[in-house]
Structure formats: C-alpha cells, structure tokens
C-alpha cells in the first residue's frame, strides 16, 4: 500500500478546539441517537413486498425491470441483449457469473469480461459497449437502487460507460433501504476490514434537471438501465 | 374566563374597529376582559432590526403589564408570536427569562384562543361574501397556528372561502423590511395581490395587523376594489 501524508493538521485542529473553547478531543463516543426513523421504514415488509417495492421504484426512475429464475437467467440476459443491442458488451469479472452458470452465455455473445491485465483495453471496450452486465450486491427497495462494491475486477466502468447498464439483482439482495446497506458497510469498518475503494449506489439511468428544471435522462452515465431480478428467495 | 386584552400598537393606533370587534366577540363567548394600561408594543420592530436592548425595554414593559393576567389575547399572530420570542430575548438574564417564559406561555392569538382554549368553532357570525384568507407567516411558523382561523371561518354563514394560491408565501411586510427593502417588498405584495385577485374574492381576510396594513396599503394605492378585513370584523358580523 502507498503511504499517505497529512499536512498542517495539528495547527488546524488546535484552532478548531480553541474556537470551541476547549482542549483537543482525544476520544469521542457517538451517542445513542434519540431519533432513528430510518429503522422503521419497511421494517415489517416481507421479501415479496420488498421486491414489489423495488420493482415499482426502479420503474419510477425509468429502469426496465424483468423477473427471471436462476435457471432462465441466461435466456433473460439474451433477451436483454436483443432489446438493448446491437453492439458490443462488457461485464464485470464477478465469480457470480460462474456460480449462476452464465459463462457460456457471456462467451457465446462475445461479452468482454473485465480483465485487469489488459489495462486500458477494458475501458475502451466499456466505452464502446451498448450494454454493461453486473451484479448488485445490495439492492434497495425504497429507491430501486443497486449497489456496486467496485474493485479492480468488479470495475466501476461497467456500470458507467455503456449506453445501458443491466444489473442482475438476486431477490435475496433486496433490503428495505440505504440503512441496511450502510449498516453492512459500517460492520466491515468496525471489524477492521478494508472497505471497497468505490462503493456506488446506482438508481437507474443518469439524468439532469439543470435546463429549466426539465428532467433529461441520459447525461454522462448510462442512458438506459435494466434490473434483472432473479427470484431466488 | 378572565382574559387580558393585548390590543397591539397597530390595533390601538390604526385598527380600533377590529379591536372593538374582538372585544365584542370574546365577551359574547363569555370572557371577562381587562385592559392592562401599561401595554404598548411587543417590541418586534426593534427585535427584528437587531436592536436587542430596545426590544428588551419594550418586552419588560409588556411582561410587567401582563404579569397578573391569566391569558393574554391579541388580534395578531405576529405580535402574539413575539411574546414567544421573549425568553430567547433574555437568554442572558435568568430572572427576566423566567418572567418572559410565563408571559409567553399564556399568550394566544385571537382565533387560536377561541378554538384551542374556549373550544368554540362557531361564533354565530354571518357574512355573506366571497372571500379568501391570507395566512400570516408569523402566525403559521412562529406561533404554529394554521387551522384555527379556517375552523372559525368555515362556520361563518354565507361566507364562501376561496383557496389562495401560494398562500404560504410572505406578503412582503416583514416589519422594517417593508421600508428597508421597498423594491423587493413591492414585488412580494404585488404577487400576493395577483393571487388574491385570481381567486375572484371580494374580501381578503387576515388575522394580522401588519399584513393587513401592507396588503391593504398596496391595494388602495393601486385602486383595487377588494376589501381587506381583519378576521375579528368577520367573526363579529351578524348581518
């Protein structure tokens, strides 16, 4: 690991402590918050209900949602390729593609699977691609959001550069909202694990309302999005 | 029920008829009213302009004048709201802060008092007209009173109350704002008047002397035919 550096810190923080009228704090305990409404949201929803909400909220953001099974996932992916093609495709290097038996589908359809040893070639492939395939690690019912814990294999470019991102969403990955996802990350932090350098919560195609507050879909990120929900739970 | 009237400086100087209407309505509802002679002004003009010492002077005068009152009732959401600011105004003076808190706790705006303390929603008023209601910011946001005027107006016979677009936007009064920032205040009151005109109402009702003075003053200047009335005038109407 590279070595980090910190400049000017003591002087800066001493000044803050001085302004706050006290010595520097060495240890602060986070209080038990009096208000924690986040835990109440969808807390009593079943897996089916959460899926229904995930679907509704994905569609609200303009994301196409398709339901499939583990067995038919390959077929469904090919139907997505037909619908959002033609053109080249990329996928993250994710062991789940193997686990779900998708190796053949990727090979047959010439999907470029991220290979870090190829360096920039990957980025070029993603840039030219019409579809990027990836798995959602945690999926948020409240907002139709998928999550990527990106690293050098599960590359961030796959959900960013192609015209369409197509996320495979195991139904079992759907949780009520961001609260459960951040709780999971927080647990990693508390356990002393190194968290992913790029944790990305993505909710549909990129968009902007900067011109006269008109919503335009498709700015610098994907123009379209598809969530392929695998009914595994 | 014994109550003390805080008529407000605007009420005393300019809006004596609404003040009288308020007295008559409250008496009809069974209140015994007194008028503490020491009262002058809640101090808001100084408070809002950053003149804290001067505001404290005014506030002390009011707190003392109403010290023995059970309830303080005012025909203005903004002035009643100012009483709620008193404890903060004396944040560095625990003795006065306590007195201020007592004054704040027993202060009500006129309609708020009728609905929440007297528990009355129909005061037997009759006022056949098409009207709309202007919500005062201070009454709504400082006093947190939004429903009472509507509950009372709903029971006024013959009154057709029309919804006002952008009712949540300030009319541009804001105390000294109205003379410090004239061009901005002008745009705000003009927009308010446009929305009032769009309702087709013949009468604009409000529960705040400041807003009334501002909107009416501008309407009169522009020769608008819409009448502006204080809610006490409506509630005391029997025709």
């Amino acid at each position, binding site marked *: 690991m590279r070595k980090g550096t910190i400049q000017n810190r003591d002087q800066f923080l001493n000044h803050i402590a001085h302004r706050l009228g006290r010595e520097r704090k060495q240890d602060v305990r986070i209080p038990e918050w009096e208000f924690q409404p986040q835990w109440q949201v969808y807390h009593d929803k079943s897996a089916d209900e959460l899926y229904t909400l995930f679907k509704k909220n994905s569609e609200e953001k303009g994301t196409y949602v398709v339901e499939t099974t583990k067995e038919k996932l390959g077929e469904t992916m090919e139907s997505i390729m037909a619908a959002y093609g033609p053109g080249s495709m990329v996928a993250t290097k994710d062991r789940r593609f193997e686990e779900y038996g998708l190796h053949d589908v990727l090979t047959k359809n010439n999907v470029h699977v991220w290979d870090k040893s190829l360096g920039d070639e990957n980025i070029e492939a993603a840039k030219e691609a019409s579809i990027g395939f990836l798995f959602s690690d945690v999926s948020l019912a409240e907002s139709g959001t998928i999550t990527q814990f990106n690293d050098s294999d599960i590359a961030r470019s796959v959900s960013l550069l192609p015209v369409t991102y197509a996320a495979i969403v195991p139904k079992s990955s759907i949780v009520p909202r961001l609260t459960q996802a951040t709780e999971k990350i927080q647990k990693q932090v508390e356990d002393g694990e190194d968290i992913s350098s790029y944790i990305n919560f993505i909710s549909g195609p990129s968009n902007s*309302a900067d011109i006269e507050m008109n919503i335009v879909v498709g700015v610098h990120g994907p123009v379209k999005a598809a969530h392929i929900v695998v009914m595994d739970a | 029920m014994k109550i003390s009237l805080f008529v407000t400086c605007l009420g005393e100087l300019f809006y004596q008829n609404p003040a009288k209407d308020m007295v008559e309505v409250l008496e009809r509802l069974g209140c015994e009213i007194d008028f503490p002679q020491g009262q002058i002004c809640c101090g808001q003009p100084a408070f809002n302009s950053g003149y804290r010492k001067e505001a404290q002077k005014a506030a002390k005068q009011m707190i003392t004048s109403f010290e023995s009152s059970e309830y303080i009732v005012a025909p203005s959401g903004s002035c009643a709201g100012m009483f709620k600011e008193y404890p903060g105004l004396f944040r560095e003076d625990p003795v006065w802060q306590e007195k201020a808190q007592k004054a704040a706790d027993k202060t009500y705006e006129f309609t708020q008092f009728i609905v929440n303390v007297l528990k009355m929603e129909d005061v037997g008023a009759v006022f056949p007209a098409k009207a709309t209601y202007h919500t005062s910011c201070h009454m709504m946001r400082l006093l947190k009173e939004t429903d009472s005027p509507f509950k009372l107006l709903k029971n006024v016979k013959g009154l057709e109350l029309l919804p006002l677009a952008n009712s949540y936007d300030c009319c541009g009064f804001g105390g000294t704002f109205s003379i410090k920032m004239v061009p901005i205040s002008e745009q*705000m009151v003009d927009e308010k008047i446009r929305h009032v005109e769009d309702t087709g109402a013949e009468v604009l009702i409000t529960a705040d002397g400041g807003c009334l003075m501002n909107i009416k003053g501008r309407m009169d200047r522009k020769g608008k035919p819409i009448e502006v009335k204080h809610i006490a005038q409506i509630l005391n109407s029997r025709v």
Partner: protein
Amino acid sequence: MAMKIGEKPFFDRVDDALQDDFMRESMARAQDGLRGKKIAATEADEEIGDWEDWRSAGEEIRRHTLENLDYYLELLTDNFARRGGHVFFAETAEEANEYIQQVAKEKNAKSVTKAKSMVTEEIGMNEALEEIGCQVYETDLAEYILQAEEGDRPSHIVVPSLHKNKSQIRDTLAEKAGYTGTDKPEEITSFARSQLRDVFMNADIGITGCNFGVAESGSVALVTNEGNANMVTSFPKTQITVMGMERLVPTWKELDVMVNLLSRSAVGQKITTYVTNLTPELEDDSADGSKEFHLVVVDGGRSKALGTEFQSALHCIRCAACVNVCPVYRHIGGHAYGSIYQGPIGAVLSPILGGYEEYGELPYASSLCAACTEACPVKIPLHELLIRHRENYVEQGYADKSEKLAMKAFGIGTSTPSLFKMATKGAPVFAKPFVKEDSISKGPGPMKLWTRIREFPAPGNENFRKWFMEHKKGGSRDA
C-alpha cells in the same frame, strides 16, 4: 472570482434583478415546481414515517459532529491517509489553491475535469489552476453552461444555471462551443455528453467537492445525478477532493440519514441517481480508478462561526431547501445576493465567511417569514440567525445613525406608557395634514419609504382605551 459576485452595491444588484423578467419567472417556476416534489418526498411521504423525526435526527447528528469537529476531522484524515491518501489542511483559500496548484505542477497536468462543487467556487480554484496553464473543464451540466458563458456565476447552490433559459443556453453554446442544434434540453444535454466524453477520458486530474466525509472509514461521499462525478473520479490518475471542513459525518450510519435528508430536500428524490463513496485505492492494479487521492480540507472563515451563535450555520448540507422556499430569492434570484451562497443560508453564511463590510446587507434581505427555518432538513434556525446578524451589525456600529436614533426613541416610547398615551392622542392630530380620505399617500419622515408604494392608514380618531373604559361601563359603540 471566488465567493463574491459582481462589484455593484446591493440595491443596484436588486434593481438589475427586478428588471430581468425571464430570470424572475424562472425562479418562481422553479420554486413552484420544486415545492410539490419536495413535499411529496418529505412530509407527505408516509413510507418514511414522520419527516420531523428525520429532521431531528439530522439536527442531532450535525450538532454532535460540529461539537466534536476536531476529533472527527482527525479520524477522517487518519483513515484517509492510512489508505494511502494525501491530506492537506488549508486555513485559507490561498493555501488551498497553492496546494492544488502544486499537485497539478507535479503531475504536469494540462487538463482537469471537475464535478460540481461550491467550495471550489468559493476559493476560486479554477482561476488558480488556469493561472498555471491548466485547462479546467466543468462537467456538471449547469456549470458547463455557466463556464461556456465565461464569467457567468451560480445563482443557486444546487442548480447553478437556474437563471438561464434554454434559448439563452443554446445561443451561448452555439457561439462558444459550435453547437448547431435546437434549444431542446435533450439535444443540448446530448451535445454536452458528446463534447465531454473524451475530455473525461484524457484528463490528468479529476476534482470533486465533498457532500460528506465519513470519518470512521476515511471515505468521501458524493451525491449526484448526472454521472459526471463518476467520470471525474474514474479515469484521471490523480484525484483531488476539496471539502469544507464541516462536511463530514461520524460513520456510515449517519451518512445514511444525511443522504436521505439531502436527496429529498434538494430535489424531492428518494435518493439521487448516484451516491458514490470513495476511499483511497488499496491496490494499484485497477484499470479505472485514481492512483493518487488528495483531500484538501478548507476552513476559509468557517471557524469564525465555531463557538458562536452561528455554529449551527455550519450544520448546513447545501440542499437549497431554504433557497427554494424563500420569497425574497423568488423575486431577486441568486446574483442579487452578490455571493455564490444565496437565499437564506447565503444571507447567514456569506457575512460569516466574508464579513459585514461586504455582506452586511444580506441579513436584511429577508422578511423573517421563517419559511427557511421550516424547510431546513437539519433545523438550522435560519431566520433567527438573520436576526442575530442584525444584532451584531448594529452592535458593531454598521447601522446608520438615523435608524439608531429612531430605535432609541422606540425603546423609550415603548417603555414609557405616558409617552405612548400622548402619541396615541397626538397621532391623529399630527397626521391630519397628510390624511386624504382614510389614508396617507405621502407620508413625512420615515413614513415616506412606506408611502413610496403603499397607502399608510390614517390614525383612528377615537381613543381605544377611552372606548374600552366606557364600554366596560355599559356603553355601546358607534362604529
């Protein structure tokens, strides 16, 4: 350019704004449009429970964080550096810019891409980089448009180009960037996409602001919609994040609450399209992702609010909810404030950062209607802070003399019943020469300001106290 917008005095800026019909229409339309969306996503959204509880949660998190700011900044930067990141604490805008220039020089950077950031605008970073020969590309659509116009400044902290309409935008891009399309937002957006694609890929440095630092993991969270922040943070080998020193939360649990408050309050979204969380890269072997990550923590005058009545102004999460409900902003727009921070929060923050000499009028540009306080997702008592500024302004001797005298008289008049009695008796007599019918059209003295645009009511002829006494004795009224 930094924080200040324009050189004209306040009232001239207001006059300019009031002449600009398109701008004013667009502000009103934006406010009206956003209002419904925001309400639907906040107090009216039953699925998230009581919005007031969320606000209270936000307030307690922000309060705790600011009260322990030194601790959390130490934690954040320890963790950031532990992962290999480089931290620079900058007391002033100049220090921040010098550091950023130095990084750019070391990297021999020619091209810099930027995601939207208010703090970089505040410190005037673009100019500093241009000074040393870097080309800086704004990539947020609104900032891209403003940059094309050359010298145009943000008029809103969330939608900086709110004051421009689509045909103005088309004309600007046609003139400055060779755009040949129509004024359709889709077409303009697609043009920006194509123009910037390669720029993103070829930039030497990517620069972002910071919505929230997460102290316990040394991460930076970016809350965005367009995907440009992702482009900026994915392809350049060097990344710089500039953060206002107060923009952090203790852990991911608090980040959750703040992201919800920000997304819903700013644009009425349940969550923005991207919530991107960056922590310095552990390994060097990724094809995308920066190799070097710098975090510049800026004070820039913020510490002046610490330990004072204005500390809660630092709780701000820059959602612009207060701006979007402000009736003054509605009519004068952003530029009239003369600061990149406009609306109620701008009127509170700008004098803290830039002083009363420059921004002393802003706290008066409010009718104290408190719509801002009601809208703020972290419960900053904005209208109260405006009053506190006014108090300071008066105490520090900035207020004009005639006002001081008038207020002194007010203090005496409102604490001396005998004087007030005389006034109520004397008012009708005094006012008589000015009264026509029932009102005064041309008032004397300070009343002149009122009667410039309105009638002033004529003092009633009757003495209310006298009436009340007689009434109690059983008298009737005649009016």
